[in-house]
């Protein structure tokens, strides 16, 4: 990004902020003349935000703009501190959007040769969203531009490590790994079959030709007939896969025990893949939905730009959920919007009278308002429902103190210490007079389940179409197995097969020997070693597919990734090493 571009962008953001400021000033002046609404709200978010919160968010906007337009490294740290302090007033600790912006500036600065700015921006990103994998990848990019290749490599490794520990990225990575594994195994099975045909197709054709020509002499139609028998499935819809399956059945009679195991395993995998992937799609449909992303953000205390919008979507999606109401109440409480929080908590208590966390939080509302009698009532009810609640007893002790009932306060305090001494001592040290319970946050897994039902719908598989999609391949696999066993019976009875095994070897000319090295699985097919042949194809295909992993899995949402160059290099080095090892340790005697 050019400096002028950055500044113009920042100016535009500043213009937005100024517009909002103007709007707020205008509303203040208008308010002098009109009645104040019960609850001012940020527009369009779908999540009620009061004036105080809006002002705080506005303040954050300003601070972000100031941080983005300033270029003095000394003041950058101060701006970031101000940003984080303001965010903490809302109960948040991370700024993923601004961290990404900082990384953008860091890489841009490095490209312009301004490495001081880069380092400052990277440090800011680390403070704004500590531990984010993108920060390491961007650091690697900056180090590479700077010419520090060892540092770049080290940062890449750190980035990969962070990706594995970052919940959302890790989830996508694991789901992608499942998809890639299935793809790899099925693709390997297909190639394994093709190699079996390359090695044994001659024998199969000879036997088919012999059946065609009977015991007499062959005719000029023998080979075309045999080929037609082999390739007829190509006329079917999805003909190519039917062709491979047809071959797998025909080649069963020529396969060794290990090769048959591989073939049966491939059929089983073909049957297992659809239900596995259907489950996965359901999981990911939820994980990638804006409400689920908002839940992730809340769990990590991230204040992303879209958070309130996505929370509004969540409430719209599951309007009847009391878990969502309790979560919303918790968020309002964190934002300081106690009145709205109380309304929601009371709705929850009305539906769930045994919800001790909501009772504690309603009691906390009354305690904040110095309405001690009502607070005591709520805390006592919470204590009866959940006798292990230290929060209920601790708050009760302060409510008694507010009512000058010191003896009861002492008893409640002692009870709280019995429940959890260290927790209570922590509250005392931090001078916390009112403690609340994040019961809504604790119900996030329950909310995810409700989202699952709402987004993914009822469990599929009951309609005939679903059954066919899910289990059609299982029936097919069973049919293939039965057909193969039938052919095996024929083989045992010496019907249709040559009595003497047919020569399957490729030959021993130099190019044929090299072909054995370069075509993994071929030498094993010649000697009937199925497992070895399958593994040989698997390793080669796995290495070759590394550069295509983004297409074979699910893209991770982080920018500044390790890059295609790394994937290509790993694949190339891996393949060269594999084929050298194949030649040196396995097949050198055949060359």
């Amino acid at each position, binding site marked *: 990004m050019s400096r002028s571009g950055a500044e113009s962008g920042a100016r535009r*953001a500043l213009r*937005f902020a100024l517009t909002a400021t103007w709007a707020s000033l205008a*509303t203040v002046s208008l308010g002098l003349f009109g009645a104040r609404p019960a609850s001012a709200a940020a527009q369009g978010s779908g999540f009620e935000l009061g004036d105080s919160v809006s002002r705080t968010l506005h303040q954050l906007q300003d601070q972000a703009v100031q941080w983005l337009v300033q270029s003095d490294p000394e003041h950058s740290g101060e701006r970031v501190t101000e940003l984080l302090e303001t965010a903490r007033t809302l109960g948040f600790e991370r700024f993923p959007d601004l961290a990404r912006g900082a990384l953008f500036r860091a890489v841009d600065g490095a490209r312009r040769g301004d490495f001081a700015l880069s380092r400052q921006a990277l440090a800011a990103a680390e403070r704004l969203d500590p531990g984010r994998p993108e920060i390491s990848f961007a650091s690697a990019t900056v180090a590479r531009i700077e010419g520090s290749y060892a540092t770049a490599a080290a940062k890449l490794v750190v980035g990969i490590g962070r990706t594995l520990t970052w919940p959302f990225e890790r989830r996508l990575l694991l789901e992608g790994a499942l998809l890639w594994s299935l793809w790899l195994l099925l693709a390997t099975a297909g190639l394994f079959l093709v190699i079996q045909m390359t090695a044994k197709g001659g024998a199969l054709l000879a036997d088919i030709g012999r059946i065609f020509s009977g015991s007499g002499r062959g005719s000029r139609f023998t080979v075309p007939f045999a080929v037609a028998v082999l390739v007829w499935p190509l006329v079917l819809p999805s003909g190519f896969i039917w062709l491979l399956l047809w071959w797998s059945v025909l080649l069963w009679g020529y396969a060794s025990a290990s090769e048959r195991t591989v073939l049966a395993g491939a059929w089983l995998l073909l049957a297992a893949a659809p239900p596995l992937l259907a489950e996965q799609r359901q999981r*990911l449909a939820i994980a990638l939905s804006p409400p689920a992303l908002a839940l992730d953000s809340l769990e990590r205390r991230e204040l992303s730009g879209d958070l309130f919008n996505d929370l509004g979507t969540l409430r719209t999606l599951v309007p009847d959920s009391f878990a969502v109401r309790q979560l919303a109440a918790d968020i309002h409480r964190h934002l300081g919007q106690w009145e709205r929080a109380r309304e929601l908590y009371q709705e929850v208590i009305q539906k769930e009278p045994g919800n001790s966390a909501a009772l504690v939080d309603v009691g906390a509302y009354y305690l904040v308002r110095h309405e001690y009698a009502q607070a005591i009532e709520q805390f006592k009810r919470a204590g009866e429902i959940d006798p292990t609640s230290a929060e209920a007893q601790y708050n009760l002790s302060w409510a008694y103190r507010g009512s000058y009932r010191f003896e009861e306060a002492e008893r409640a305090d002692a009870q709280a210490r019995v429940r959890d001494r260290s927790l209570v001592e922590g509250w005392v040290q931090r001078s916390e007079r009112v403690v609340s319970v994040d019961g809504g946050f604790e119900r996030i897994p329950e909310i995810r389940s409700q989202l699952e039902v709402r987004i993914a719908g009822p469990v599929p598989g009951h309609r005939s179409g679903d059954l066919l999609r899910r289990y059609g391949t299982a029936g097919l696999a069973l049919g293939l197995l039965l057909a193969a066993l039938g052919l095996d019976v024929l083989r045992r009875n010496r019907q249709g097969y040559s009595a003497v095994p047919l020569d399957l*070897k490729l030959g021993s000319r130099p190019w044929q020997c090299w072909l054995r090295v370069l075509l993994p699985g071929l030498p094993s097919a010649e000697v009937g070693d199925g497992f070895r042949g399958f593994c040989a194809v698997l390793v080669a295909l796995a290495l070759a597919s590394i550069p295509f992993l983004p297409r074979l899995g699910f893209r991770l*949402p982080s920018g500044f990734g390790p890059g295609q160059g790394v994937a290509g290099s790993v694949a190339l080095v891996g393949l060269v090493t594999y084929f050298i090892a194949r030649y040196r340790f396995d097949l050198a005697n055949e060359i």
Partner: protein
Amino acid sequence: MSVEGNLDLFQLPEILQLVAQQQKTGILTVQGNEDIVAISFLHGKIVAADSLNQAVEEGLKQVLVETGVLSGAEFARASAEQAATGQRLVDFLVESRFVSRTRLLEALRIHTRQLLEKLLDWREGDFKFYSGEEVAYEEGFVPIRVDELLLHAGGAKPSAPAPPVRRAPIAVEANAPTSDAARPSAGALLGFPGSPASVSPAASAAARSSERLSEALPAIVLPFPGLEPPGPAKPGVTGTGLRQMTLEPAPVPRPIRHVGRVLGALAGCGLLALLIYRPDQAVFPFSWQSASLQALEETQRSAQFLKIDRAAQTFFLLEGRFPEHLSELRDRDLLGPHDLFDVEGRPLLLIPRETTYELHAEGRAGAEDATSRSISGNFLLDPEFLSLRPGTQAAPLVLLD
């Protein structure tokens, strides 16, 4: 098809009689502790026998010298001359008029019978019979009937151990023609004259050692196409282990063999093309799974669009606009090269507007898989988000917990 067992269960005379009675054609291998003997049967009669420890040359020499047909010196000269020509010894002896073919066949028959008589003394070992349609044998050889052999052997003899391993390497002639190269012969199994290859030095070394013969067997049998090396079973062979053997494979006619390979190669190219251009079809290959395939691609698209959206919003945050092209995001490392293409490999297009952008694959504008994103609702980007209502005089926030 094969029959196998050990000599504890069946004595050799019983086995031989069984084969004779059923008029089987095939090869019976008998493996003792220190030697292996292969007997070729044609319609229940013995037409050849070979031992790992005694080459046919040695047996012939012994018989020809004992019967006075040739002296030891004459045989040695013949053997040396034959080695230079590369012919089979039996052919060379006849063609060089050292001995008539009739006498040679008689000598071969005597040698075969002597070998079998020794074999009848074995009380320990394993046998395996490989049934076939044809076996190779010396043309003109008068078959030995099993009852004739048993009568000549003169009844039961005291049990004796299997003969010791011959210490000298096994001499083998290469490229020796047989009456039918395609037929398996007992000699081919053990590497004697008429076999298509020679015994490897590894085999000889192993045989010279005191190790069990079965340990040497893999190295001995490896060079012979008719014998299967240790390892997994091959078609037409039952059982596993070192003693697995099979009949020599019959050649497949070259045109058919080539057609099979061409079919395999074409299918391989087709499969690789499919894996490269439509990789997802490997997991949902059938036409009835098209809905599942679309759903999978939709999920992949969601993940990809989430990544692009985050990159575009970051760009907007810094530049105050959306990028003109996706390549701008790639150039800033916010996206990778793969992200510029959709899950089906089509180039993606980003159409920026003031506060929104549209994203779709080339030629798919307005399609279901197209998406439109906006800054609306993003408190960092959307100027409308924080427009306050009239009368706001909010108190400062107090962080309570």
